[in-house]
């Protein structure tokens, strides 16, 4: 009984194969242009306005929508849905539970995963989006629910536009697998 339990921790599967150089190049290019677009707007246009567009979870999303574009986790439904739903949950957790930030942070992430699962929008960076809403201090928390629209939805839409343009330029790539 215990033996079987601990044997499960040994792992019984193998890692998928390494992708081709071509695939590595297009992943790099997509991330460069996608994060580049959001970062340029963030630092070039919004500097000093108090608004911003670049949040850490978009870096995580870049891995999926430029690096693992066939994954169900990387499709527009998951990408946009996961970020927006998690942002809503994160802001709500902060509003309801601050100043108990440890509990707000915990529930923000746990509830986000549960709701993303239930709505078929599971997108791992969504967990970060929910967490950012709680832990980032007044620059973010003062936005309230505006956080959901900007930076989250706006930033994600810019990244999605770049994903559609760049991923489909590659001869052996196609994005998305499904929209909804």
């Amino acid at each position, binding site marked *: 009984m215990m033996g079987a339990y601990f044997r499960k921790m040994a792992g*019984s599967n193998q890692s*998928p*194969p390494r992708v081709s150089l071509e695939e590595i190049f297009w992943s790099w290019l997509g991330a460069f242009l996608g994060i580049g677009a959001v970062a340029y707007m963030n630092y070039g246009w919004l500097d000093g306005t108090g608004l911003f567009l670049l949040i850490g979870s978009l870096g995580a999303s870049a891995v999926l929508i430029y*690096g*693992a574009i066939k994954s*169900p986790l990387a499709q527009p439904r998951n990408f946009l849905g996961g970020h927006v739903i998690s942002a809503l949950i994160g802001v709500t957790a902060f509003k309801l539970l601050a100043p108990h930030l440890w509990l707000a942070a915990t529930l923000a992430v746990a509830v986000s995963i549960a709701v993303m699962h239930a709505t078929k929008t599971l997108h791992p960076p969504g967990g970060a989006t929910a967490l950012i809403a709680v832990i980032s201090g007044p620059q973010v928390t003062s936005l309230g629910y505006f956080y959901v629209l900007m930076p989250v939805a706006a930033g994600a839409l810019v990244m999605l536009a770049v994903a559609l343009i760049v991923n489909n330029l590659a001869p052996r790539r196609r994005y998305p697998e499904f929209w909804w």
Partner: protein
Amino acid sequence: MLDTRDKPVPAPTPGIEIKEADILEAMRAIPGYLDITPGDFKEVYRLAFQHALERLSREITAAEIMTTDVVTVAPDTPVAEVAAAMGRRGVSGVPVVDAGQKVVGVISEKDFLTRMGVKEPMNFMTLVANCLMTKGCVALPIKATLATDIMNTPAVTVPPDTPVKDIAALLTQSGINRVAVTGPDGRLLGLVSRGDIIRATMGRAAP
């Protein structure tokens, strides 16, 4: 508790076992990062294949695959004529039907061999060996008998809406090679042999 990792996963069909090396090769052939381990893919493949086989054999019925152009004999047909008819048509079994086309029995090659004193295993090569070691024809002892004397009765029959899956199980369990398909009144509609099942399954499974 058993460790399932060390046990070979049973193949959906003997001889069609996909290896993880095959899956890795396939994953390399598809451009882009596939978000699944070869082991998980194998599990998906195995279950999907099983599902497809089950669906195919559930959907096909006896009526769709049976041979309707069946050679039959009457209970009072002399076995010499039964043998000649089987030889002419190249079949290894015939249903025995009465005047009303009702199936009363089945005669297969094995029934001849049994009556001819061929010892286990009752197959053609044992018969050849017997022939070569004795003078005269080993079929002589049954020369005067009739179909009704050597037939298997009652015949194993199925209704026309029987799924092929059930027929395959029946053939395996009973150790026979064909079943007669009969209507509600017991009249012969056709015959389903192992060959019919294989042809039907392969034809449907091919893309």
